[in-house]
């Protein structure tokens, strides 16, 4: 059974019709697939059919440990969205529900390699010297969450020092507990700084700078 209905597949095909460059969707699953691992892999494979610029690559988290380490993948299911270069854009857990929009957005932006951020943000990111890890916790039923995910991914595309993950809280309850996630979106920056809710770009930038001061 296909995950994407005919109607949705056509819509996605249109959305991805003018990709600016090739994009690889690298999926990590395992031999005996967890429920969401199987669905994540299938989702990526189905999307890859909808554009000749897209390819799906499937790896085994255990057997292909080196590949996982190379891409910084530490849990599954995982998708790395890679364009001309690896912009450190990751999805942990299945990007379904509202997060499907984040996935399509990531594919389009990675294809172009050009983040849609203000000049002020781009300048601040360019001046950074310390690595930043942004983890955006979401649920698939959260309409506010894609705003935060897209923003974090844009920042990763803009700066080689930023890596940005969507983390689906329901699939990684241990992380939700670790980071005290009781509401989404919740963005964790470098383990030290938190943003509640879908904050606008300049607020996220301020929090990022705050996190760097603590480093």
């Amino acid at each position, binding site marked *: 059974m296909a995950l994407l209905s005919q109607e949705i597949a056509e819509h996605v095909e249109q959305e991805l019709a003018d990709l600016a460059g090739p994009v690889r969707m690298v999926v990590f699953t395992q031999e005996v697939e967890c429920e969401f691992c199987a669905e994540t892999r299938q989702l990526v494979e189905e999307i890859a059919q909808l554009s000749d610029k897209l390819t799906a690559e499937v790896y085994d988290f255990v057997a292909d440990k080196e590949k996982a380490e190379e891409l910084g993948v530490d849990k599954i299911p995982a998708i790395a969205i890679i364009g001309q270069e690896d912009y450190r854009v990751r999805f942990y857990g299945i990007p379904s529900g509202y997060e499907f929009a984040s996935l399509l957005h990531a594919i389009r932006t990675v294809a172009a390699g050009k983040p849609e951020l203000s000049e002020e943000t781009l300048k601040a990111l360019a001046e950074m010297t310390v690595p930043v890890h942004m983890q955006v916790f979401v649920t698939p039923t959260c309409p506010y969450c894609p705003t935060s995910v897209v923003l974090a991914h844009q920042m990763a595309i803009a700066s080689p020092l930023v890596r940005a993950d969507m983390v689906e809280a329901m699939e990684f309850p241990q992380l939700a507990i670790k980071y*005290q996630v009781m509401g989404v979106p919740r963005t964790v920056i470098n383990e030290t700084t938190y943003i509640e809710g*879908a904050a*606008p770009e300049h607020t996220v930038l301020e929090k990022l700078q705050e996190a760097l001061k603590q480093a």
Partner: protein
Amino acid sequence: MKEQADQVYDLVILGGGPAGLTAAVYAGRAARSTLVLTGPLPGGQVATTQMVENFPGFPEGISGMELAQRMQAQAGHFGARMVVEPVTGVDLTHAPFTVQTHCDTYRSRTVIIATGAVPRRLGVPGEARFFGRGVSTCATCDGFFYKGKRVVVVGGGDSALDEGLFLTRFAREVVVVHRRDQLRAARVYQERAFANPKMRFVWDSVVEEILGEQTVSGVRVRNVKTGEAAVIEANGVFVYVGMTPGSRLFAGQVELDEQGYVVTDRRQHTSRPGIFAAGDVQSPDFRQVVVAAASGAMAALEADRFLADEVDR
């Protein structure tokens, strides 16, 4: 994308909910250059609604997000440009009117204010401190985190019951705290709520404080009839005590009523020529997608007429 310094739009629409998007469809069809500043939640409040069962033309119902996306696609189809940015400032005192976002300044001959309404907060101790850590206004977003726990829902309207019913999928018990002895919600919600064994009601009571150390441990309520205080133990508090209009930026530039709603006439004109308003920001009376859409259409038709009368000549 940086804005062209000399670009002046025919119409800038503030807000990307049903009112703003319907206005964009009409303005686009009238071949007016149109920009929509959607804010952080494209589609507006309806995008957070699970199922819209009362929008004509969708007999099986339609998810709020899908309805919003279809409206966006329709607006885009007729040429409206959409920018996902919140408005940070406006100058509506003289034409061309200017609208600022954090990144850009836009100029326009007419403006439609369709910024909607946002959930009202309780304004009690503990609420701000625990927001996002036990206090929420989005059950569909955060319900999962209360699996097997007890939660409090504050309010007695449609949203309180609809979201409360959603929470029963996860929570062990949903305690609805309401300030009156009967609900305001539509009959269909009331029947569903009373029939649900996980829902319990605390009548005639207001929340006075949200309690907890690191996370929420409960709420302190007071019975408005007896004055008696009590503590309800709970891990989460979902607040649905009505809405407040998103009109703060317009105060002093167009007339607002005591509650902050933008005052309009029957044709959606505000107190200032060339500035129109539509949707929940100008009326607390209905809060229906179809009503917002209708007022958006009227505002756009009037903006088009204004442009034809005042500007095109």
